[in-house]
């Protein structure tokens, strides 16, 4: 954590007093005895775009699941200083999750799939229609409301999944390698869409990925994780004066960021050539 740069001032984060989520000394071991996370601490402020980057098995998905409430911690705590907490200790309704697979119900139309979170809250279809159509418009699928998932391409299914995550107007969007299974062109397109969403809505995003380029392009903070057991290796705030877009992808700044993050990732893996790479 040597090269700290000034934190990017990104609209519309109003520099909140209280962080959104605080993980303190969280450890997680599975019943098989594997220690997935060891003493991990992470504080995420409102409006941040944080990438969790690391090799497979470093516990980044586990960390995300624990934050979402899908898994329990073995020790340590998770706090939500800025939210109202329900009986399960979760700020229910404030969190949405986008899985690696689109995870759509094949028997429901696009509309029905996006309606699900609201339906589970007992909101009628008529009352929900406007919000659902707005979310579908955001992801560019307004004309596909009546289509079934099987009629859509992989990228479009992922967009439906994102629309479903947005329909509850969450404060925090958790994304678990959402574009890992997509082709490079679709992936770049969806990266731009997620960036635009983040800019427009001011939502906080925690994005799990194993791609250096993806994390460097998207985030304003990258947390590099180390495996066996999973823990934080490095924490980079990323600043850029450039608008993130095609121009940024070819900029010297982006290249430098990728190099710096790659270097840190290699250290995290304990790759023996890490020193050699520095000479370039």
């Amino acid at each position, binding site marked *: 954590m040597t090269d700290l740069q000034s934190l990017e001032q990104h609209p519309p984060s109003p520099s909140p007093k209280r962080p959104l989520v605080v993980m303190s000394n969280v450890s997680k071991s599975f019943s098989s005895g594997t220690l997935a996370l060891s003493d991990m601490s992470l504080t995420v402020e409102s409006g941040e775009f944080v990438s969790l980057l690391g090799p497979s098995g470093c516990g980044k998905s586990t960390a995300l699941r624990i934050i979402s409430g*899908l898994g329990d911690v073995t020790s340590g705590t998770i706090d939500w200083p800025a939210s109202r907490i329900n009986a399960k200790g979760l700020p229910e309704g404030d969190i949405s999750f986008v899985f690696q697979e689109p*995870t759509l119900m094949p*028997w429901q139309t696009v509309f029905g799939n996006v309606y*699900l979170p609201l*339906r589970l*809250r007992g909101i009628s279809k008529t009352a929900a229609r406007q919000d659902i159509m707005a979310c579908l418009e955001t992801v560019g699928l307004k004309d596909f409301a009546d289509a079934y998932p099987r009629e859509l391409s992989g990228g479009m299914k992922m967009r439906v999944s994102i629309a479903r995550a947005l329909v509850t107007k969450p404060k925090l969007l958790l994304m678990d390698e959402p574009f890992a299974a997509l082709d490079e062109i679709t992936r770049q397109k969806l990266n731009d869409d997620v960036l635009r969403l983040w800019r427009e809505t001011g939502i906080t995003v925690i994005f799990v990925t194993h791609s250096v380029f993806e994390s460097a392009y998207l985030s304003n903070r990258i947390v590099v994780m180390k495996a066996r057991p999973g823990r934080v290796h490095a924490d980079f705030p990323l600043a850029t004066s450039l608008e993130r877009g095609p121009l940024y992808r070819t900029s010297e700044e982006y290249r430098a960021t990728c190099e710096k993050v790659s270097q840190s990732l290699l250290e995290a893996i304990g790759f023996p050539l890490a020193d050699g790479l520095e000479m370039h």
Partner: protein
Amino acid sequence: MSPEQSLVARHRETMLRILIPISVVIALILLWQVLVTATGVPQYILPGPGAVAGALVKDWGTLSPALWVTTKITMAALGLALIGGVGIAIFLVQSKWIETAFYPIAVILQVTPIVAIAPLILIYAPTTQVALLICAFLVAFFPILSNMVQGLKSVDHNLLNLFDLYGASRFQTLLYLKLPASLPYFMTGLKIGGGLSLIAAVVAEFAAGSAGAGSGLAFRLLEAQYRLNIPRLFAALILLSVLGVVIFGITSFIAWLSLHRWHESSLRREN
């Protein structure tokens, strides 16, 4: 290919799909008639299709009430099996322990040959018809139960996580996720159960040996055999086949209706 041409081509394929099996059946019936005429087999051993058709018309007064009885028992048994199978499946998957405790009982009921239980059921049931109904139910019930249990347990884990994440209640998860997700399994159970309930209704009537006005097609079939009225036996047999085909058609149509929009089993491959 222009749109009109492809439409014509598709219609042609549909027509052929219907015409080819019908022609094969007609050809077989003709062959049957030719063989019977050529060999001169006596009617009490193998009647020709003409004689069978004649018996169907002449004995319609005896056969149609029997057909109605068998239809009623089959449908009632299938209906009860659907309610029971789905209901008990939902009950069984509520917890691992409930399933451990009760599933073996369902298996025991299933593997015991129905003909062997029939005499016992006859003793306990108030009327023969109720006994037949119970027998047909027991046979049709199991495939529906086991398919439903399989379906309810095969729900995509990510979708279950998603429902958990949004704080869905047990009932909501059942209604919006588990039941729709197990629809393809239910339809398999329905198709198998539909066929089995007719078979069971006939086998049980053989075992029960019912008689009189309330008897079904199976009894009429046995009666015709005792009287060496083979054309009538064939006529009863044909009615049973037709009933079986109709049940198969209805259950397949229901399966198609509920699955064709989304499930792979009802979709044409697009390549």
